[in-house]
């Protein structure tokens, strides 16, 4: 038996004899093994409703039905099919109605359909089910130009067939990119292209945010916007590992890797590309004092304000300009009293400054805030 026969569909034609109130079945078992056709494998993933690793498979088989009641047995070996997910429907030919679906004792790998055919003849059936063991990962290769302003972005789906089932000439649809028709045997892994974009606009950012990145260094990202302006935006980018290279004079230099998070159309992805050695930020507290002190009748402090001044010293040792974003976090109820450069309150507890530095430029600024109504 070839492995194509792993999923065996058996048609049992029944002559039913009614004896009193009891229906006895005189069985004539015709074992037909119709060829599976038009196999489609839709991989599970984001927004498909089934988890990753679970694929929805559908296949068609042409079968000759008797007029009236027919019995179809589907048995499989070694394939992780969820029996509850099995669906049977007629695509064309003699229509049929599924009267009952039965699960026999002792076998988790068999299902029996009782179907009622409106007329005898050929019928194209579609059988669909969910199948475990079709895992897939995504890998991106991003190659940036020397200026780090443009890049090529190629995405591949790597699909592993551990399902126990062989597929010949199946249409494999990862849900991203174009489906590909090919054979896919148990134990194999294959790669399918899901994205190929050239001249993608990227923005390299420099951010100082010790609280968020757990480092005193300035961190660098490539920001990619999934939109038409960036030469992307056709569909969401599924989560995957991204390897990042810089193309310098025709040779690629690997500069790091990061996870590219799921990015819907119009949203941006951020890839971490390391810490900047040539840009430094030093944050120091210049002043801290209690003001507006309120005391109770026992002369104990019950409320006070706290004024603080912070200084940031930023140095760009590169021979290129750099735009550095400096992020600070302040809890509670506060007000800015003075900032030497423009700031943005991005949320109730976050202040952002953006500093554009020329090559080899050093810059300093302070901000002065008051935190109000603190309790001792």
């Amino acid at each position, binding site marked *: 038996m070839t492995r194509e026969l792993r999923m065996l569909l058996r048609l049992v034609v029944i002559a039913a004899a009614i004896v*009193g*109130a*009891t*229906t*006895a079945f005189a069985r004539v078992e015709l074992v037909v093994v119709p060829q599976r056709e038009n196999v*489609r494998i*839709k991989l*599970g993933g*984001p*927004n*498909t*409703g*089934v988890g990753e690793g679970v694929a*929805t498979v*559908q296949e068609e088989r042409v079968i000759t039905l008797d007029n009236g009641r027919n019995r179809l047995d589907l048995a499989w070996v070694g394939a992780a099919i969820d029996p*509850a*997910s099995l*669906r049977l429907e007629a*695509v064309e030919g003699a229509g049929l109605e*599924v*009267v*009952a*679906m*039965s*699960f*026999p*004792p*002792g076998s988790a790998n068999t299902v029996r359909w009782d179907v*009622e055919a409106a007329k005898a003849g050929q019928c194209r059936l*579609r059988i*669909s089910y*969910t199948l475990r063991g079709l895992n897939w990962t995504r890998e991106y290769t991003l190659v940036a130009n020397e200026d780090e302003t443009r890049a090529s972005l190629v995405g591949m789906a790597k699909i592993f067939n551990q399902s126990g089932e062989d597929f010949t000439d199946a249409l494999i649809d990862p849900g991203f990119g174009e489906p590909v028709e090919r054979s896919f045997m148990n134990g194999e892994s294959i790669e399918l292209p899901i994205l190929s974009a050239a001249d993608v606009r990227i923005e390299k950012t420099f951010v100082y945010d010790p609280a968020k990145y757990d480092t005193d260094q300035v961190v660098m990202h490539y920001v990619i916007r999934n939109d038409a302006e960036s030469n992307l935006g056709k569909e*969401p980018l599924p989560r995957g590992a991204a390897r990042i290279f810089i193309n310098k004079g025709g040779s690629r230099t690997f500069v790091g890797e990061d996870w590219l998070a*799921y990015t*819907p*159309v*119009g*949203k941006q992805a951020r890839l971490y590309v390391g810490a900047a050695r040539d840009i430094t930020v030093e944050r120091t507290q210049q002043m801290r004092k209690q003001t507006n002190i*309120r*005391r*109770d*009748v*026992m002369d104990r402090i*019950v*409320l006070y304000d706290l004024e603080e001044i912070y200084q940031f010293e930023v140095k760009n040792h590169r021979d290129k300009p750099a735009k550095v974003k400096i992020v600070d976090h302040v809890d*509670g*109820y506060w007000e800015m009293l003075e900032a030497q450069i423009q700031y943005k*309150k*991005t*949320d*109730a*507890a976050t202040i952002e400054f953006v500093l554009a530095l020329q090559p080899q430029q050093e810059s300093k600024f302070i901000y002065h805030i008051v935190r*109000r*109504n603190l*309790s001792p």
Partner: protein
Amino acid sequence: MRNLVIVLLGLASLLFSLSPVPAQRAAGAVELTTVSERQEVEMVIYAAQDLTHIADRRLMELSKGINRVQFDWADTQIDPTSVRLRAVDGKGGLTVKNILFPADRPNALVWLIDSAAAGKRLLEVSYFTKGLSWEPCYQAIITPEGDRMSLKGFLRITNRSGEDYPNARISLVVGDLHLITDQILQEQAALGRPVGVLKAEMKEMEKALAEAPRPGAPPPSAGAKRKAAGMGGMAEPAEAVAVAGAGGVSEHFVYELGHRETIEDGWSRQLLSFHAWPVTFELVYKYSDGKHPTVYVKFKNDEEHKLGRAPLAEGPLSIFQRAEGGGLNAIANATMPHTAVGDEAEIPIQTDINVVVEKKMTDYKKFRFEFDPDKRPSGYEEERSFRIEITNTNDRDINLEVTQRFEGVWSIESPQKHEKKSANEVQWKLTVPAGQKSVIEYTVTTKFGTRIKAQGQPADAAQAKPEPEAKIPVRGGEDK
């Protein structure tokens, strides 16, 4: 497995087993002569408990005088305290004189029946058994356009009782029963073995069960059929539709299969219970926190939605969408909530990661302090401003309900239209067009301590409801 054996002992020995073929095991030293045909089996399967009531009707040739009928239930899950025998042909002259539990035969009993005349009688053996169960399950296929669906309901019946039940009339009951079967068995086990004497409670239960498949106000067709069966006559041949009727008994709901069904031991059988098409539905997005809203399918269990014939019992629901090319794409494995006729089913199906929500607190103030005579803080207010930005990257509009919860004594201001849903909830309803962004902004002010009773502040006085003082997180403050 065919383990139930009923034997008529005596001169004209007659055996019938509960299966249409001869019993696999001979009943001891008893002489076996004929296998009788079953006239009818009725099953009432309860969803909430592992309990099924079986009524098995047989024609038996009885002699005038005392007849001995043996019932043997080895390797089944029959509750021995529940086994009953009665004549159901409406003719009198039959008395169960005695019930014996033979010392040498476990799982067997013998009825001594006094028959006034010789002849064929229609007898019913009834009992409770474990091992049969049913659950509803559903399949929805949404059109490629995504506005309507085909909804199929199935009843999946599983037989692990140890006994085959061919051509049975089956009723399925939704709802809980109060049962003391285990206590009865325990009590009787302590006495050595089960006895055939009825406890008052068992009588009541049996009465309830006997009435269960005879709904008070069933649909006409089902009612008529039930009546015929209840009168002791033979049931008419059933039509080929799956579920004939559905009705209620007390607080219980009963589904009746409109045809006979064979459920062999070990098998699970999934039968179509209804097919509703086209069911219009709404897709509603709901958000309260996190990065993405959850998508709900909403429809009413009523005639307008091609439903409304019966409550939808809770069960697994597979949702597919018909692809343009004809195939099916899995959308979700969800759960149909129990939905009474006329009620709305609201089914969470998935988180839509193509709708991105960014919620942040944009401002915070703790102020408007008040002090007690000792100059300690006795009350204050907190003001929090939030911004919720929703980006719909899908190529279709979405209807979104944003619900935010607030504790304590609070008031809210928002430039977007909103509604107080309860003492703790505010809801915004909006449509986010395809590929667009919508923003909700609000400021919520919460009062603490003596500020709750403060006058002349821009608070929503109608809403403000003083909270117990214990909830006020003012440290060292002497409130009042």
